[in-house]
């Protein structure tokens, strides 16, 4: 068992200049065989491993990561956490996730800084207003704590916002989730890794999967850059790279990989203490604890694996935000980056068994899956352990695309971040 993190352990270790801290997770050599292997050391993969071990007693398992854990989209997202989606099936998984976030730091004994500072989604056209009113009704009956707020309330919550009624898209109101917010993205990956490792899970970094081994309709293992590994259960959780992995198993996916960008400003003293999303003009912004403004926008339209996006996408977002928050005009962009997001045909995720026995897939979180990490890991672990979809995972099966049973959130005029 790992020594517990606390103010006391900090003080104790300070005595000898922090020379005695142990590793947050081991760096084991791959075993020849595991009971289950998770491909992809992002938030979803690590959470899946953690819950497989914690809730289902599967501890002889490995997370296989081609690079460094959390180096994918989990490490490059704008960390918005909310659950006020429109469709019942979406609400179910995102709210399970959000509520798990509430206690995650304590559960993992790793402060991932869940900050329920509130998420405001602006209504800037009649149509958007009506769409969010509808969402508000649906969410209330589903039991979510959310409400519509007036332009005046918006101004109180976010004093720096432009509420000029004559501006291009005046703010007609906003949809507000007070217990939505942000979290420390890296810490989510590291916390789950440390938690899983403590339960015996092997986290294999710098280990790229190059093939899925099969015997007829069954999986038997994987080949990796660190050798072959036998296993009867494989969970593919590789986001932007899911198509390439599933191709190895001969399964074609309803997925396209696009580049989504984000950027941060230079750090400044606090000016914004909630998350603001302006979907009509395609921009959203929050301020991190370190002080930088964290900004995200839309994707480039074309397939892209380069983790570098087009300047225009970023330019449109910034232009929109300068109009929404005029004071940022004289602030400066510090860094921009991109991530490869896995977009499905209906923009909703896939949590599914496949036609191949022992092969499961968790992907399609696209631009909005950070908020879903705990919930997704929770139900996907259950799905893998019991070889049947967890109730909450069921609507997200691959079969929905042949049945026309799409889960379309764009209906709510909301972007999925």
């Amino acid at each position, binding site marked *: 068992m790992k020594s517990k993190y606390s103010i006391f352990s900090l003080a104790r270790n300070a005595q000898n200049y922090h020379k005695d801290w142990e590793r947050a997770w081991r760096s084991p050599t791959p075993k020849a065989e595991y009971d289950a292997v998770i491909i992809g050391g992002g938030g979803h993969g690590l959470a899946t491993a953690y819950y497989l071990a914690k809730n289902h007693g599967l501890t002889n398992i490995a997370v296989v990561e081609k690079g460094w854990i959390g180096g994918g989209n989990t490490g490059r997202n704008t960390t918005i956490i909310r659950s006020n989606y429109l469709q019942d099936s979406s609400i179910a998984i995102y709210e399970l996730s959000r509520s798990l976030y509430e206690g995650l730091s304590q559960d993992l004994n790793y402060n991932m800084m869940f900050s329920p500072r509130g998420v405001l989604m602006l209504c800037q056209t009649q149509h958007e207003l009506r769409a969010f009113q509808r969402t508000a009704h649906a969410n209330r009956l589903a039991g979510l704590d959310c409400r519509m707020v007036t332009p005046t309330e918006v101004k109180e919550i976010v004093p720096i916002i432009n509420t000029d009624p004559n501006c291009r898209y005046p703010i007609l109101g906003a949809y507000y989730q007070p217990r939505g917010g942000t979290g420390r993205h890296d810490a989510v990956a590291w916390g789950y890794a440390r938690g899983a490792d403590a339960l015996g899970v092997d986290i294999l970094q710098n280990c790229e999967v190059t093939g899925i081994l099969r015997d007829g309709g069954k999986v038997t293992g994987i080949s990796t850059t660190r050798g072959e590994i036998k296993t009867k259960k494989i969970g593919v959780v590789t986001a932007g790279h899911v198509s390439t992995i599933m*191709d190895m198993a001969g399964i074609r996916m309803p997925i396209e990989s696009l580049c989504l960008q984000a950027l941060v400003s230079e750090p400044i003293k606090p000016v914004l203490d909630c998350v603001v999303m302006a979907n009509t003009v395609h921009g959203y912004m929050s301020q991190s604890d370190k002080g930088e403004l964290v900004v995200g926008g839309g994707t480039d339209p074309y397939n892209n694996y380069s983790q570098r996006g087009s300047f225009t996408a970023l330019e449109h977002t910034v232009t929109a935000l300068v109009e929404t928050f005029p004071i940022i005009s004289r602030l400066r962009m510090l860094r921009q980056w991109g991530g490869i997001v896995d977009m499905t045909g209906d923009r909703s995720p896939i949590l599914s068994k496949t036609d191949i026995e022992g092969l499961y897939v968790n992907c399609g979180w696209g631009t909005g899956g950070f908020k879903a990490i705990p919930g997704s890991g929770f139900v996907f672990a259950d799905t893998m352990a019991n070889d049947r979809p967890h109730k909450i995972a069921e609507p997200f099966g691959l079969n929905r695309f042949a049945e026309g049973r799409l889960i379309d959130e764009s209906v709510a005029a909301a972007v999925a971040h």
Partner: protein
Amino acid sequence: MLVVTCPVCDASGDETDFHYGGQAHVKRPATTDPVNITDEEQRDYLFIRHNPKGLHFERWRCDRGCGKWFHAARDTMTLEFKATYGITELPPVELMKEAKGPWAEFFKKRLKEKA
């Protein structure tokens, strides 16, 4: 910001002067036989997409130029355009041969037909 060149009017400009049209060579089953289409065929037509890391084949429209649709072969890692070709045409043979994974399967038949 990519530079795209239209094979129809030879105008070349920023990607924002063009419109991206998704994967190329997707067959619409109903056009040839509206009656016998399985749910799976319809799913493949609507949702299943080639998503290669590397050489990809796609559709673009010369939005701010001649307004015509065309095909392009582009590398999704370097984002370099390898070729553009007519909207009713197949890619240059050498690119069909270069293609990997699902694209290779797709072009195998076409190459046979050509040969």
